[in-house]
């Protein structure tokens, strides 16, 4: 079932939670609603579910208008942020609740319900916990029971509100993979809300970035990361290094620092955005850039080494005035970066924002570089 959101507005008192939001959720896809808190993502999800009503606008499932349809009759699966398991019922009773609630004519027989509950318990790999109460389960187990409960009546649409928000990192990773498999197996149209960009990029087929009640950008994860349409999306999708300055004769400069901009005609104010993996570190300036930085900290982040640097003789955009560059362990071992060392940033791919123009221009130096290096982006 595809979902169409058309011109939805929602106010809470004076606060405009959603401002004319329109969206197409394709059938069978896993879509992430990504945004900071207060961006309206949960409100949108609740309006799609029918738990909240919009002030104006229309929701349709497969082209059929469901705006006026009661949540009870929409047949959707909904997983709540804090699971909302019925605390006075066992796991089995929780899972059976939706089936028990069906009108008498559609309700399966008692034995069929028991059979279905057993199947779902197998699916979530918790058949031994059927008679436990929610308070006796761990966070990850509760989440799986909540999922089983929501899909017991075989809905076509599955909505999840911050499904992994309250879980620790390891469980979160396992559950993400498990949810992805479940989605592929059962052919749902799923939407999940998250504020974690990593989760959105890893898990979804399509990401909807929201900010202040509006949709900022909709795209596939890889495209979204490679080509953010606005400064907001750029900032929100992870660490970014920014130098702002004046563009003159195809080169951006600020104080003693400068970087050439091949193929850019613009003149005047501009900001250059670079992801940590789009920058290399060298011990001397190169032909296309002179961006001196002093190393502030070197920290090991799992499979990568993160180097934090402070601009030397120029200013970075942003409050902390810090650049971050990710290097591999091999590079770290050969170069031995140490706090206080001077390094030169070598941009490879960058994104230039000019004036109030929201769309950035992509700048690529790697092709121009004399000795191009192949680097695996982790």
């Amino acid at each position, binding site marked *: 079932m595809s979902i169409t959101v058309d011109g939805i507005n929602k106010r809470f008192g004076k606060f405009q939670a959603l401002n004319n939001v329109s969206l197409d959720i394709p059938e069978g896809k896993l879509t992430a609603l990504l945004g900071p808190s207060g961006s309206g993502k949960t409100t949108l999800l609740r309006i799609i*579910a029918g738990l909240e009503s919009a002030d104006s606008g229309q929701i349709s499932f497969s082209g059929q208008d469901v705006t006026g349809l009661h949540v*009870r*009759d929409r047949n959707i699966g909904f997983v*709540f942020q804090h699971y*909302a398991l*019925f605390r*006075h019922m066992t796991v089995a009773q929780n899972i059976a609740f939706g089936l028990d609630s069906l009108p008498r004519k559609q309700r399966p027989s008692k034995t069929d319900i028991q059979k279905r509950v057993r199947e779902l318990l197998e699916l979530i790999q918790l058949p031994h916990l059927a008679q436990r109460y929610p308070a*006796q389960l761990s966070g990850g187990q509760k989440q799986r029971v909540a999922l089983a*409960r929501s899909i017991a*009546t075989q809905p076509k649409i599955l909505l999840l509100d911050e499904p992994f928000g309250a879980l620790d990192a390891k469980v979160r990773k396992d559950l993400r993979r498990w949810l992805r498999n479940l989605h592929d197996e059962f052919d749902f149209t799923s939407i999940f809300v998250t504020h974690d960009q990593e989760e959105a990029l890893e898990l979804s087929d399509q990401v909807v970035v929201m900010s202040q009640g509006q949709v900022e950008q909709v795209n596939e994860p890889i495209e979204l990361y490679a080509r953010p349409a606005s400064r907001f999306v750029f900032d929100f999708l992870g660490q970014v290094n920014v130098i702002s300055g004046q563009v003159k004769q195809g080169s951006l400069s600020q104080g003693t620092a400068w970087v050439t901009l091949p193929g850019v005609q613009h003149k005047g104010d501009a900001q250059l955005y670079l992801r940590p993996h789009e920058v290399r570190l060298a011990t001397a300036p190169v032909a296309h850039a002179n961006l001196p930085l002093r190393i502030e900290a070197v920290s090991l982040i799992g499979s990568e080494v993160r180097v934090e640097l402070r601009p030397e003789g120029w200013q970075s955009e942003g409050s902390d005035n810090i650049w971050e560059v990710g290097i591999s362990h091999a590079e770290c071992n050969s170069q031995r970066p140490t706090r206080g060392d001077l390094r030169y940033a070598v941009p490879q791919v960058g994104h230039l924002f000019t004036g109030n123009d929201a769309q950035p221009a992509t700048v690529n130096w790697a092709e121009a570089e004399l000795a191009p290096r192949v680097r695996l982006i982790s």
Partner: protein
Amino acid sequence: MASTRARSSRSLQHRRVGDSPAIKWLLIGIAIAVTAGLLIMPLVVIFSEALSSGWSTFADNLLDQYTLHAIGLTLFVAALTVPLNLVFGVALAWLVTRFRFPGRKLLITLIDIPFAVSPVVAGLLYLLLYGRNGWIGSWLADYDIQLMFSWPGIVMVTVFVTCPFVARELIPLMQQQGSEEEEAGVVLGASGWRIFRTITLPNIKWALIYGVVLTNARAVGEFGAVSVVAGSIRGQTNTLPLHVELLYQDYNVVGAFTSASLLAGIAVFTLAAKGFVEWRQARTLIRLQAQETA
């Protein structure tokens, strides 16, 4: 030197700030004295006075027709009041915890009016409104309906005086539990009644019972408001607390104490029931926590 310091640090380990034994035992002593003097002694006196002329007098006093009528009327009033306030309390708690509307905070404050107002004042207000010369009462009198100085008046003021108990118990609990479970029920297709019966009610069960126990205790023992609207007509509008006063004024001290001992008995029973409910609630909580850590 070193050993002194070690010793003093060891004694400090046992004692926390503000944990001085002198103050502790002083407070315990005061608490025991106050409890004995103000609570236990009077309770003992009630029963000993009631039985001062022997068991047969006690039985005679108890089986006196006016006493029996007073017992009957008191239980009748409680039997009407408790279900009324049960429904009212649940509905009110549901309203203020599940809906947002202007004046909600004000309503929560207004619930406490019966606690804040002296029961005598409450009784007078009802008399002014519903009495034969009152605003509503004079209109009702035209249809030959008399509320004051008969049992409906007693029920009305008792309902007023006891209406906060159930709501007061439920509101904090329902606020803390939130409405997510009920929302989950709706999404799963359950009807409103099914949600209330299978999700809400089991979650508030013990708080509800606790509220009912308190309502019942107050409904049985209410004196001030009832004395204003009942008129203490022996054999007609005389509840047990009013009966105690009437007998005492008749210089029938033993009779007064006999009826009083009944009320005290109900109070002791209520306390036991309340203790049991609290114990059950605590036990459920401990069991759940134990299982959570296991």
